[in-house]
């Protein structure tokens, strides 16, 4: 077991399909090795409900699509030393940003009225308001490491985390690309 102090990691998903987190879990048995070196202090994969004040590495999946995404991105930027943009949605908007070519009202109408046969209605309670333009993470806050891929492979995520744990700056272009 490693004796060096563990680094803290926080993750969350914004407007994405959670596939990047699934790819993270795809590291399989390497996860055991990873737990010896990192503490996951906040994530949809763990129980903690609040983001700690100081986190070493923050990982964001998904693009900025709603007020809630915007808040989370700002919170992660504020509390995380290194911010990682994980996956194509985070890095370039990807599929969520395909709605940018339509008016937001038309998109919402299409999803909740035009294509619905029973009780068509637009949800307003308990859901965050959508922003008119979907942006990549770095469109709203500064990002330190970009990991493209849809989703980036478990190997790519492993490489990036290992480099960060070792205190180095990873170059994800060597292991992944847009659409990978």
């Amino acid at each position: 077991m490693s004796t060096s102090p563990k680094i803290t990691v926080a993750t969350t998903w914004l407007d994405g399909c959670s596939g990047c987190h699934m790819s993270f879990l795809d590291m399989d048995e390497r996860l055991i090795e990873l737990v010896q070196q990192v503490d996951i202090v906040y994530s949809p994969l763990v129980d903690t409900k609040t983001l700690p004040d100081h986190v070493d590495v923050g990982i964001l999946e998904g693009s900025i699509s709603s007020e809630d995404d915007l808040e989370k991105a700002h919170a992660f930027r504020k509390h995380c030393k290194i911010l990682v943009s994980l996956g194509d949605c985070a890095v370039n908007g990807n599929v969520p940003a395909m709605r940018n070519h339509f008016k937001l009202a038309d998109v919402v109408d299409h999803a909740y009225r035009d294509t619905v046969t029973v009780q068509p209605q637009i949800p307003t309670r308990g859901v965050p308001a959508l922003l008119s333009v979907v942006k990549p993470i770095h469109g709203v806050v500064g990002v330190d490491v970009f990991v493209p891929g849809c989703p980036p492979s478990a190997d790519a995520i492993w490489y990036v985390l290992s480099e960060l744990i070792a205190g180095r700056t990873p170059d994800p272009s060597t292991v992944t690309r847009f659409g990978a």
Partner: protein
Amino acid sequence: MPPPAKQPNVRVVTLTIDGRDLSARADETIIEVCRENQIPIPSLCYLEGLSVWGACRLCLVELAGQGRLLAACSTRVTEGMQIQTNTEKLQRYRRTIVELLFAERNHVCSVCVSNGHCELQHMAQKCGVDHVRVPYRQASYPVDSSHEMFRLDHDRCILCTRCVRVCDEIEGAHTWDVMGRGSDCRVITDMAQPWGESDTCTSCGKCVQVCPTGALVKQGTSVGEMVKDQHFLPILARRRLAQ
């Protein structure tokens, strides 16, 4: 215009590329000499067998004693040239060019038919483009699916004009052309009519094969299925010249 035929008796010049002493025929371009000597030069609009267009600027090189950068595809070699092909400055410029191509149209690789077989995508990875630093233009473009065999998606077009040149210079149909200016440029078929209604198109598919991206594809291909084959081009180009 097809590429000019090589002259039989041409002077030989000597030059250095990345510090290597090389000799070349005086009617060759820098990119030709580089390719012959396995010196990698990135390019998107240049394709052996087609005329030179010089639009993508990815093949920029540095020439000693010259302040401005030169496009390797459209610059002939001259005696004593000292060329650098991969300086930090060039890498920076190339990366920016690729980012601008991504920002200009709408590239969603994960749902693109050319995903994994795309020269632009490959170039992005090679140039270290892990994100695009400029805001996306977010302009909307149409898709033309009127041709019974092929499809044109302007969202994926980088205006390299390979389709225009191959159709004109190799197939001889001249179905394609370019309309508009700047980032509003668009490739068109005939007089901007739907491709399926074209009187000139022979449906040979050469444009589809030489298109570096997912802009021109075969109907019915889904994500990642569109694989292109360009081996035919230098062969046909040589036969054309021999005619």
